[in-house]
Each structure stands twice: as C-alpha cells, then as structure tokens.
C-alpha cells in the first residue's frame, strides 16, 4: 500500500466549536448544528459547498429529545450531502473515509462532527453500547465497559512492564497545566498537584478519578477538503501529511494487545510511512486520552519510548507547557472536554493555524514553533485506532 501520493494532498480548513463543559438545557442535536455551522463559517465556505457529512457515533439520547441522526443533522444544516455517514461503535475511520471520498472525487468538502449533552444528561461511562441498561453478559459480573476494561488493560501493563500511578500522574498533571492556559477547558480554573492526584479516590483499580476523561456537553467539527481548494480559503493551510488506521477488533476480554502492540503500532507505522518522516520530526502530540494509560500505551507503541520508560518520558513536565515535547495542549479529554477524536484533531489544527492564545506552541509557551503535529483517535477498548499527522504548509 503506497499512500505517499496522498501526503499533503488534503487539508483541514475549518474547525467548529460550541459552548462546552456543562451547558444545561440543550439537546445533542443543537450542539451538532452549532458546531457544524461554525466549522463551515470558519472555513469560509457556504453550506452549498458541503457534499459529505460524517458523524461520529451517537449515544442513546438522554433527555426528552430525538436521536441526533445524520439525517436530522443534515436537515437542520440545510444540506443534502452526496455521502452521509455515521459510525456506530467507535470505529475511528472518519479521516480515512473523508480522504478516500475526496481522492475518488465523490465529494469536495466533507464536514465531520461529534456532539453530545452528556454532562447535563448525566451520561454514565458504562453506556458504551447505546443502551441505558447494560445488556452485555459481562454485566452479570459487574463488568460494565470502558472504565473496568481500560483499568484491566492498565493493570496488565503494570504486570508486563514498569508503569502505574507514578507514570500516569505526570500525564494527568502535565495536561492539566495546558488546560490551565485554555479558557474553554473544563478544568481551566483548577490546578492539579501530585497530592491531588494520589489522594483522589480509586474508581476501578488501578485508576483514580483523574486518570479518566471528562464528560462534556458541547460539539466539535472540522472540514476536510483538497489542499488545492484550501489555498483559496481564508485559514492557513493545514495538511493531512500522514494517515494510519488499524482495527485489532478482538474484544478486550480475549485480547492479547492490552499492554503492547495495540492498534497504535500498526496505525502509527502506516501514518509515518505515508508522511515519510520519523518521530523526531514531531513538534507536538494530540493523543486520544480516554484514560492516562491510553496516552502512555499509545505513545509507547508509536515508539517514543521503550516499555516501562514512560515515567522518564513524562516526568519533570516534559510534555507540559515549556516541555521538550508538548502533549495534549488543550488539556485533552482528561482536562479540556470530551469530543472523541475531534478534541485532539481540532486542537492540532488550531495550534498549526496559530490560534491558541496563551497555550499557543512557540515562544508563548517556551516550546518549538510547530510545523508537524501528531494526532490520534482510538475507539472501543483499544479495538480501533487512527493516526492523523498534520502539517502547516
């Protein structure tokens, strides 16, 4: 598979944000619409230009509201896209799908959106399968999904190599420092110390409160098109330099990839090969961080450090503002807000466009001016992984 011809051929030309955090009284659909409209406006496009709409998965509606189907989203956006799509169970192929549709010329401008009202609707982490009540047989044993599953992966990692809270606390704290520079982050006003991290209650061993992602109201969107078209639009051109994907698929309970060779390994190799660069070309990372451990295992499988050396990699604020390799510069899913893979990807785009205010990479945060940012997304319980390397032209 030679993907090099796709390198720097497509671009992300606009991003859409909404009020986020706890925003009571709103439907998930309303956040979809607001994020979508804002992305279209941000790109300087009009709705007639959008001929592809890809929605992330939609969890079951929480309040008295309709399911935010892609039909409804398209209707309310006033668009009739040639291609309309929504993933169901966290397979993270949105960007590969978008680039494929553009490459084959089925579409010209593709809008990708995720939104939810999970904070106001008090969505539980266990609700991974669009059911309010657990239906999986594992529930009979009190095993309800994401938290326990990732906790068991992390516990296995602690057995296979040197890791644990002493590593993860650095990840949580470094990301919180970025969030403290980001006024829209849910934890903007709250610092996190080592004592806060360690003293926080255990949820499911070995995870404590601050190992887990936030639950958020709000939406996030972006638009993918060709670099050729991007040059005529108003924002600085941010290209998709590399793309990778892998779907190990096997249920985490039968899997052998909990602590090594997750999808990140194969997906990362694919993306770096397409981008024709090595790790040392990366100026910053936006890593999908449903849990602190996810950041560690992803970056370990990408090859940033050897198994067990994560603690040395993350300590002393190495990935925090002023650090040698900034990671999750918005605060990420742990400290900014949860919009699946669009939290990392839109932050990567914003950084490369130079629109990040006090958290802007470069002089402002005593970090390197970014040219290339590595982003990723991860779905299911390490069952799906995608890698998106972005570059400022």
């Amino acid at each position, binding site marked *: 598979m030679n993907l090099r011809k796709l390198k720097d051929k497509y671009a992300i030309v606009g991003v859409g944000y909404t009020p986020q955090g706890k925003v009571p009284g709103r439907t998930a659909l309303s956040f979809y619409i607001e994020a979508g409209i804002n992305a279209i406006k941000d790109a300087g496009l009009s709705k007639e230009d959008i001929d592809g709409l890809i929605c992330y998965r939609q969890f079951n509606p929480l309040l008295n509201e309709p399911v935010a189907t892609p039909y409804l989203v398209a209707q309310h956006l006033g668009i009739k896209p040639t291609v309309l799509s929504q993933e169901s169970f966290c397979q993270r192929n949105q960007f590969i799908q978008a680039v494929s549709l553009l490459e084959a010329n089925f579409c010209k401008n593709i809008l990708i959106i995720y939104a939810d009202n999970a904070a106001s609707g008090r969505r539980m982490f266990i609700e991974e399968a669009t059911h309010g009540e657990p239906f999986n047989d594992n529930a*009979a044993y009190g095993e309800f999904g994401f938290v*326990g599953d990732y906790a068991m992966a992390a516990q296995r990692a602690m057995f296979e190599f040197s890791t644990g809270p002493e590593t993860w606390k650095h990840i949580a704290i470094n990301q919180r420092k970025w969030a403290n520079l980001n006024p829209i982050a849910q934890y903007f006003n709250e610092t996190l110390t080592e004592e806060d991290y360690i003293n926080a209650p255990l949820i499911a*061993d070995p995870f404590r409160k601050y190992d887990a992602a936030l639950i958020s109201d709000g939406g996030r969107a972006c638009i993918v098109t060709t670099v050729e078209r991007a040059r005529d639009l108003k924002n600085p051109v941010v290209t998709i330099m590399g793309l990778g994907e892998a779907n190990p698929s096997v249920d985490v309970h039968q899997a052998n990839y909990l602590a090594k060779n997750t999808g990140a390994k194969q997906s990362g190799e694919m993306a770096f090969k397409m981008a024709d660069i090595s790790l040392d070309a990366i100026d910053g990372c936006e890593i999908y961080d449903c849990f602190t451990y996810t950041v560690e295992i992803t970056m370990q499988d990408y090859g940033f450090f050897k198994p067990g050396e994560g603690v040395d990699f993350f300590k002393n604020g190495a990935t925090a503002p002023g650090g040698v390799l900034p990671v999750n510069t918005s605060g990420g899913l742990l400290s900014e807000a949860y919009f699946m893979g669009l939290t990392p990807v839109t932050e990567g785009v914003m950084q490369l466009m130079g629109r990040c205010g006090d958290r802007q990479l470069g002089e402002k945060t005593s970090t390197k001016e970014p040219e290339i940012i590595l982003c990723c997304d991860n779905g299911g319980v390490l069952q799906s992984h995608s890698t998106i390397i972005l570059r400022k032209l």
Partner: protein
Amino acid sequence: MELFPVSTFDTEIFYNGCKEKKLIFQKCKNCAHIIWPNSLFCPRCYNNNFELIELKGYGSIYTFTIFRVAFHKAFKDKVPYTVAIIELDEGPKLVSNIVDTPLNEIKIDKKVEVVWKSCGNTFLPKFKVIS
C-alpha cells in the same frame, strides 16, 4: 436485584453447561481450536463441526480490576468487588469475578479454580485464588 446473562442461539452451549455447573466449550474438529466466545463457525478455519468438551476449571488471573464505585444499582451493596479476566489452562479467557479470596491476595498470574455461584435459576463460574 441481580443482572443475568442472556442465553442466545450462539451462547446456549456455554450457558446450558452452567446450569449443570460445567464449563462446556466447542472444540473445532478440524483445527482443534477451542472456540470462545461461542460461534457457529471456527474463526481460525471456518469449519463448523465441533465437539463439546468440558474444561477442568483451572486457570490463572490474566488481569483484574477492583470496582470501588457501583456503576449500576445492582452492585450498590457489592463494592468493592473484583472483576477479572481468567485465562483457563486450556486457553479461553473468561470475564468473571474473584470470590472467596482476600483482596490483597488477588494478583496477576495467581492460580485460580472455578467456584459455581448461583445466579437466578442457573449458576455462573466464578473463581478463587488457590495456593
């Protein structure tokens, strides 16, 4: 209240065994793979001829977590409790609970044996650490 597994066309092989406190699995007659979860076809060779075998009920803890928070009202009075992935000696990995074992003795790689616990009108295989 209690949550129950639901036996389906695919999984009734396993759950019928549970009713008799037996760990019954499908073994592929073509490649000898022990299939788990239950399926109409062997995922290795796509054969659909099986024999049913009974596993001995011994294995080790592959990984585990201790739930400190009840994510469902059925477990409100049960925290803290342990969920584990048990790697049976014959190969399959089962989600289950570690029972009849002090929390501080629960560690990865510890040997376990099956303990059948009643659940509604059937039994579920749970595991205890053995020395």
